[in-house]
C-alpha cells in the first residue's frame, strides 16, 4: 500500500469517527426532546382543567383530597428548604475537604481519604433516608425539642452529607488542575500556604468549583428518596425547617406508587409539577452556564 493510500484510509477513518462523535453528542438533545415530549402532553391536558395562574400562585396543594387546590408553591418551598440546608452543609465542608486534600495532605493520606469520601456518594439514598428518619431526627430532637418527627432539617443535613463528596471530588480535581507555576509564583511573592490557596488556587479553579456547586445543587433539588422517607407528606408553604413538608420529588413518588388511576387529573399533576421543576432547573442552569463562562480560565 502506498503512503498516499494509507493517508487516505486514515482520513476516511478519521471522518467516520467524527461523524460518530457528532451523532453521540446530539443524543443528549434527543433525550431532552424525549423528556419534554413525555411531560408536555400530560401537562397540557392538566392545564386544560386548572388555570396556570392558580397553579403558580396558589398557596395550597391538596389535589389528593376531595377539596382540591392546585397551588404548587408549597411543594417548591419544601424543595427550596431542603436543598438550601443541604448546600449550607455541603459547600463549606466539601470545599474545605477539597482544599485539604489537594493542598495540604500528603499523597499517601490523600490516596486513603479521597476514596473513602467517594463512598459517601455511593450510599443508596434509601439508606440515607432511613438514617435521617431514625438516627438524625431523634438526635436533633434532643437538641431541638420542638422538632417534629418529619421535618426538613434532618433530610437536608443528610442530603448535604450525600452531596459532600460530589463537591469535594470535583473541586479537588479542579484545584489540582491549577498549574504549579501559578502556585510557585504566589509563594515566590511571599504568600503563605493559605494565602496562596484562597487568593490564587481557588480563584483559578473557580470554574471547576462552580461546576461542582451547580451539580451539587441539582442533585439536592432532584433528590427523591431521602425526602420521601424523612421529610413527610404534608405540603405547606413555610420556610420553617422544623415541621413536616413535602417536596416536588416526594410528591411525584407518592402519587406514582399510590392508588390514583393513571388517566386522571390527580395523576397528571405529577407531570405538571415535573415540568415546572424541569423549567425552573433549566433557567437556573442557563444562569450558571453564563457565570461559568465569565470566570473560566484557560491555562498557558
Amino acid at each position, binding site marked *: 500500500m502506498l503512503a498516499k493510500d494509507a493517508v487516505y484510509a486514515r482520513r476516511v477513518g478519521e471522518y467516520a469517527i467524527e461523524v460518530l462523535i457528532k451523532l453521540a453528542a446530539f443524543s443528549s438533545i434527543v433525550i431532552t426532546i424525549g423528556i419534554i415530549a413525555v411531560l408536555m402532553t400530560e401537562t397540557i391536558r392538566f392545564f386544560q382543567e386548572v388555570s396556570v395562574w392558580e397553579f403558580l400562585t396558589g398557596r395550597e396543594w391538596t389535589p389528593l383530597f376531595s377539596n382540591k387546590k392546585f397551588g404548587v408553591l408549597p411543594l417548591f418551598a419544601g424543595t427550596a428548604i431542603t436543598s438550601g440546608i443541604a448546600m449550607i452543609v455541603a459547600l463549606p465542608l466539601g470545599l474545605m475537604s477539597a482544599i485539604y486534600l489537594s493542598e495540604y495532605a500528603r499523597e499517601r493520606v490523600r490516596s486513603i481519604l479521597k476514596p473513602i469520601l467517594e463512598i459517601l456518594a455511593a450510599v443508596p439514598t434509601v439508606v440515607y433516608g432511613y438514617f435521617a428518619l431514625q438516627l438524625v431526627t431523634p438526635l436533633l430532637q434532643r437538641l431541638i425539642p420542638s422538632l417534629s418527627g418529619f421535618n426538613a432539617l434532618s433530610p437536608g443535613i443528610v442530603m448535604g452529607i450525600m452531596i459532600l463528596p460530589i463537591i469535594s471530588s470535583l473541586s479537588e480535581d479542579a484545584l489540582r488542575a491549577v498549574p504549579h507555576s501559578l502556585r510557585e509564583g504566589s509563594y515566590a511573592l511571599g504568600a503563605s500556604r493559605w494565602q496562596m490557596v484562597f487568593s490564587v488556587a481557588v480563584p483559578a479553579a473557580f470554574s471547576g468549583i462552580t461546576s461542582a456547586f451547580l451539580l451539587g445543587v441539582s442533585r439536592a433539588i432532584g433528590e427523591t428518596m431521602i425526602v420521601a422517607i424523612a421529610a413527610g407528606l404534608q405540603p405547606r408553604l413555610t420556610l420553617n425547617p422544623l415541621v413536616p413538608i413535602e417536596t416536588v420529588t416526594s410528591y411525584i413518588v407518592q402519587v406514582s406508587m399510590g392508588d390514583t*388511576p393513571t388517566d386522571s387529573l390527580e395523576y397528571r399533576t405529577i407531570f405538571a409539577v415535573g415540568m415546572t421543576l424541569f423549567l425552573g432547573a433549566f433557567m437556573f442552569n442557563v444562569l450558571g452556564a453564563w457565570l461559568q463562562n465569565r470566570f473560566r480560565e484557560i491555562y498557558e
Partner: protein
Amino acid sequence: MNKQFITGAIVVIVILLGYGVMSRSDTNNDGSDAGSREKSIITVDGSSTVFPITEAVAEDFQKTDSLVNVTVGVSGTGGGFKKFCAGETHISDASRPIKSTEADACKASNIGYIELPVAYDGLAVMVHPKNTWVDSLTVTELKKIWEPGAQGKVLKWSDVRASWPNTELHLYGPGADSGTFDYFTEAIVGKEDSSRGDFTASEDDNVLVQGISNDQGALGFFGLAYYEQNKDKLKLVPVDDGKAENGAGAILPSRETVEGGTYQPLSRPIFIYVSQAAADREDVSRFVEYYLDQATKLVPQVGYITLPGNSYERARDKFKKRTVGSAFAGGSQVGVTIDHILDAR
C-alpha cells in the same frame, strides 16, 4: 468515497442497529404456547395491600412447579390497572374495585376481566398504650376528628368527648394517595378523600407505628396486619358504628369480627382481576385456582382475613365460568357483601 458517503453509511448502520434492538421486542412476556412445557412467566402487578398475599401464593406455587415463574409488582392499584388494561400484565392486584375510567380503558383495548375477591382487609384504629381514657370510638366521633372542617379546630382530645383530658390530639395516617386513606375517608367522613390535611402522613406503615408508639396523644389508622406485628407498642380501639344489625356496641377488629361482618365500616374486600386472555393460558388458570385453594391457609399467615363460609368455592366457580365484569358500579363502595360480588351477572 467522499464525506457524504461516509456520513450516510454511518447513519444507516446506526439506524440498522437501532432497528435490530427494537425488532427483538416482539417476543413479549406472554408469548409461550400452552402446549409445550417451556419456562413461562406470569406477570402480576398492582396494590401494595394485596401484594403480601399474592407474593405468598406465588412463592409456594413456584415451589410446586419450577417451570413457571411469577413476578409480583407493586405499582399501586391505579398503576396496576393501567398496565392491566394495556395488556402488560395477566393479573391485577387491587385494594379497591375497578373504576369506570379504568373499565373503559380495558373495554377500549378489548380486555375482559374476571373480578375475584380474595380476602378482607381490616383497618385498625390505634392509640398509644398509655392512653387510658379511650376505650371506644364511635363513627360519628371519628368523623368529627377527621373531617375537613376539623382542621385547626379539633386539636385536643377534650374537643372530641368532653369527658376526655385536654391532651393534644396528634393524628397519623397513610398518605392521601393510598387506597387505605381513600377507603377510610369514604367510610368515616362519607366522601372519598375528604379529610383534614394536618395529620402526619406516611406511606410506610412502620413509620406510623413508630410515630404513634412514641406519642401519648396519638391517634392513627392503618391495616390490621401492621398492628398484629406490633401489638406491644399500640393499643387497639374498638369502633362502634351505631348500627345494631351488624353487632351492637363497639367492636374490636379481629379475624372473627371482620370475617363475620360485625366490624363495620372499616373492613373492605380486596381483589385480584384476571384477564380473560390470560385465563385461557393453562399455567395462569392453574395459578389462580391454586390461589383460591390456598387462600384459607395463606391469607391469615400474612395478616389478612379470610372470606367467610364457602366464598372461595364460589369464587372458584366464578373463575371456572370465566364470568367477566365488575359487581361495582365503577368505584369503591362501603359495606358491599361478598355474596353481591360473587353473584353478580
